[in-house]
């Protein structure tokens, strides 16, 4: 099945994020070889040039690196992977926080709601 995309956000950025999540969640482990641009483009149902761009972004952020002849790999720098996990979770929390704020919850109520949710 091709991946699904949200409207109005560049596709390369959605690919970048999706691969980051795959890495942060351990679907791709530190040091793992990543699929080739074309293979992953076919799996995702996107243009190979778009996938290439997503890989370049990930490379720039240091989450993946290229071995000149053999392909692309997930970094084995655990500090970077921890930072990635924190970045992604901060994004999720900020989304959740702004939704709850819209509902009129105070900071204390938000904190309590999160703890209660986990407990139940």
């Amino acid at each position, binding site marked *: 099945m091709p991946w699904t*995309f949200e*409207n*109005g956000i*560049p*596709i390369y950025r959605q690919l970048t994020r999706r691969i980051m999540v795959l890495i942060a969640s351990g679907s791709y482990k530190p040091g793992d070889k990543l699929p080739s641009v074309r293979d992953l483009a*076919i799996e995702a*149902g996107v243009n*190979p040039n778009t996938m290439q761009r997503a890989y370049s972004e990930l490379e720039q952020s240091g989450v993946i690196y290229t071995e000149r002849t053999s392909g692309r790999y997930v970094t084995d720098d655990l500090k970077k992977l921890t930072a990635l996990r924190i970045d992604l979770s901060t994004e999720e929390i900020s989304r959740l926080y702004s939704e709850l704020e819209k509902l009129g919850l105070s900071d204390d109520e938000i904190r309590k709601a999160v703890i209660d949710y986990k407990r139940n």
Partner: protein
Amino acid sequence: MNRLSCTNLTKRYGRLTALNGITLELQPGKIIGLLGPNGSGKTTFIKLFNGLLQPTAGELLIDGMPIGPDTKAEVAYLPDNDFLPEYMTIKGFLDYYEDFFKDFDRKRAEKLLEPLGLPLSQKIKTCSKGTKEKIRLIVTLSRRAKVYFLDEPIAGVDPAAREYILKTLVENYAEDAVVILSTHLISDVEPILDDVLFIKNGNIVLHEETDSIRERTGKSVDELFREEFRC
């Protein structure tokens, strides 16, 4: 170098102007969506580059050559109507295509046909509409061409067949080729397009990268199209 270009390309049918002075350059290595409503000039544009129509005015070039036998040898064309000879078997049709086109890669065609589970001895007239559409696409993509014109390749097939067709396209187009895909089913093809051309009343009103449109407008190409061409 441009793979494909035209300057002031104009086509009139009597008093009707189908293409109104289009100037365009397309580089290799891209899949380009030619998007416009019915009657906007998509098929006329494609037929001109295939030498099936003569322009009223203007110049058009493929790899720097004027349209003729040399360009036809490197252009693969999937027309919007059914061109399969009903009386042939699939194998007979492959023989026929191999005779016609020097760049036809028969091994590739047979490999792509394999997952469809069709015996090559099957008569084309007994194939379903979706299967015929797949066969047409497979023989077109099995040419090692420099330019592919696909006119409405996914109209009239079910969503699973659509997915198969687009996947086959992404898997098989050569990296130095340019693929021009005309369709009005934009949301299905949007993720595989590098660039889009909006064609409206014979004019190109937009030529931009898919992701740049999404970034600039905060909309998908499909949404932007619906706005631009609202009735």
